[in-house]
């Protein structure tokens, strides 16, 4: 099967800045694909390369097997939900949603009927006559989504679409987006810097660092078996252990990662590693305990209800065999 979107050694350099540097990716049709990374890692540029707002300085991009090198944005069968929504302020909601059909010359009655269907899909029935300025952030987001879906794209690109929403709304929209993607069956490519969002929504995640793809895989693999220190550190706040410490804990002399929730407190006498409690941070669903063991600081996540140590107390650290993940690269 041909991939929905394919990057073949794609680069996008701005002068001396290598925003995207030799990226190879294949995004399967019908999948929910997340591009995760800190700001400046090249994830948004990759999205813009797919939509055509940037042109690669090297390599090729294929959409459903077709090379997009000479195809301008308006002739690509992909649509984008913009970070700032980019709704047209001089049109009402219905005309915003119907815009893609209007520029194709679809008659007014037909395109308005279709716009109403899409407004119903994003649960905004009856909002057609309003102006974007009269809507809340969450509603604007839905309008932007409906507008991007009106052309029935084969790939939908979402550029940090939930970034401007507050936490509660963001979680609700995460569920809705996921459900919508499964219902429509089209490929979603989603850019985010929020690792929780990427892990909970995507089928596959690509972690970006400095213009390159650090790791691609299903969320469990990205979280559980990070390939590099960067991935381990960025995806969840893992304990990244230097080679000496890995060796002391019974692993090879290589960099490794140990998830805070995999660690537990044990009596210091019987532990392989012991240290002092440096800080406690109450998180509601659990408590994060920072333990200082020599030069290293390790985070331990204790579930709610567990007995908490006092600050300064000497504790031992234990973990199940297999929780220590040894990384391929430094």
């Amino acid at each position, binding site marked *: 099967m041909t991939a929905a979107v394919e990057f073949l050694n794609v680069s996008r350099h701005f002068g001396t800045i290598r925003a995207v540097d030799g990226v190879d990716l294949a995004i399967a049709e019908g999948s929910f694909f997340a591009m995760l990374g800190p700001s400046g890692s090249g994830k948004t540029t990759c999205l813009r390369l797919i*939509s*055509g*707002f940037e042109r690669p300085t090297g390599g090729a991009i294929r959409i459903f097997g077709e090379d997009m090198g000479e195809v*301008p*944005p*308006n*002739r690509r069968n*992909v*649509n*984008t939900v*913009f*970070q*700032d929504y*980019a*709704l*047209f*302020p*001089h049109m009402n909601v219905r005309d915003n949603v119907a*815009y*893609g059909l*209007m*520029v*194709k010359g679809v008659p007014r009655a037909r395109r308005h009927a279709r716009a109403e269907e899409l407004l119903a899909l994003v649960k905004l029935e009856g909002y057609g006559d309003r102006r974007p300025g009269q809507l809340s952030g969450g509603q604007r987001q839905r309008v932007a989504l409906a*507008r*991007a879906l*009106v*052309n029935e794209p084969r790939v939908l690109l979402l550029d940090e679409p939930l970034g401007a929403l507050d936490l509660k709304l963001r979680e609700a929209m995460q569920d809705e987006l996921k459900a919508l993607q499964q219902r429509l069956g089209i490929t979603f490519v989603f850019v985010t810097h929020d690792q929780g969002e990427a892990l909970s929504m995507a089928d596959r995640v690509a972690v970006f660092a400095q213009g390159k793809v650090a790791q691609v895989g299903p969320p469990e693999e990205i979280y559980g078996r990070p390939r590099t220190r960067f991935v381990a550190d960025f995806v969840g706040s893992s304990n990244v252990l230097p080679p000496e410490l890995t060796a002391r804990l019974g692993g090879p002399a290589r960099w490794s990662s140990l998830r805070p929730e995999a660690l537990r407190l044990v009596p210091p006498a019987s532990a392989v590693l012991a240290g002092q409690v440096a800080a406690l941070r109450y998180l509601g669903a659990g408590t994060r305990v920072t333990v200082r063991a020599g030069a290293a600081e390790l985070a331990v996540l204790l579930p709610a209800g567990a007995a908490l140590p006092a600050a300064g107390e000497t504790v031992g650290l234990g973990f199940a065999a297999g929780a220590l993940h040894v990384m391929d690269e430094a």
Partner: protein
Amino acid sequence: MAATGSARAPDRGPGDRLGGLFWRHPNLLLCLLLALPLLWLGVVYLGSLAALLLQSFYSIDEFSGVVVREFTLKTYAELFRAQNLDIILRTVAMATAVTAACAVIGFPVAYFAARYARGAWKAAFYLAVLLPLWSSYLVKVYAWKLILAKEGIVTWAAEGTGTSAILTAILSIPVIGGNSLSTSFIGTWIVFVYVWLPFMILPMQAALERVPVSMLEASADLGATPGQTFRTVILPLALPGVIAGSIFTFSLTLGDYIIPQIIGTSARFIGLAVYQLQGTAGNVPLAAAFAVVPIVIMLIYLAIARRQGAFDAL
């Protein structure tokens, strides 16, 4: 450790106490700030406008030349005499042509400045647009007279490049052509466009600057061609700026009395008519009635622009 000392910082003098007074009475500050401008606008400006309006309802005694201070619409009726109506129509046609040309020439400049110019280029843009406004208006108009004169730079350049035939063809167009550019309506139009162009570019640039790039990308993303994006997104969003600019170019042309005097035919424009009527002719009521015409035209223009939705994007 508990913080010590008073919760109140020491008083730092009368300025500080005045600041406190304004903080307690925000409306007081507003009144003080607005008092002088309101006095100026309300009394000096609106007052003289009212006096002008009043004058236009008086009439002049044809034999004695004395102003009759009685309410009448006779003076307004005079505006519709063929020779006066000609002046009004000529002026409106010129103002329309000048505004259209300013919009067409100014748009690409404003678009470049708003979208692409950064840093030094932006400074260069402002300098280039504003520099002509710093020199004397009369100097510029006389400079244009030299450029457009029969023995002037344009004629010389046309001869040098072998394009004299084109210049002759343009000048032989009936009504707007003439003996030379400096004695034709085309010449008047060129100079008007040059002199008022900055007033069109600046508001358009301000309007275009507020259109986010993502909006143009969204349009292209949804399948619009560049032409469609221009018509359905850029133009409607820039329209308030175009209208603001055209208010300047239109009203400035309607009221100007110097350019048509120096460059063009001997045909009169509203500004010149007002100037001559209140001066040599001593017919202040008719001058006032003429002066009301641009005001009425502008009000009609704004009403139409509003109905067309020109201000919807504001």
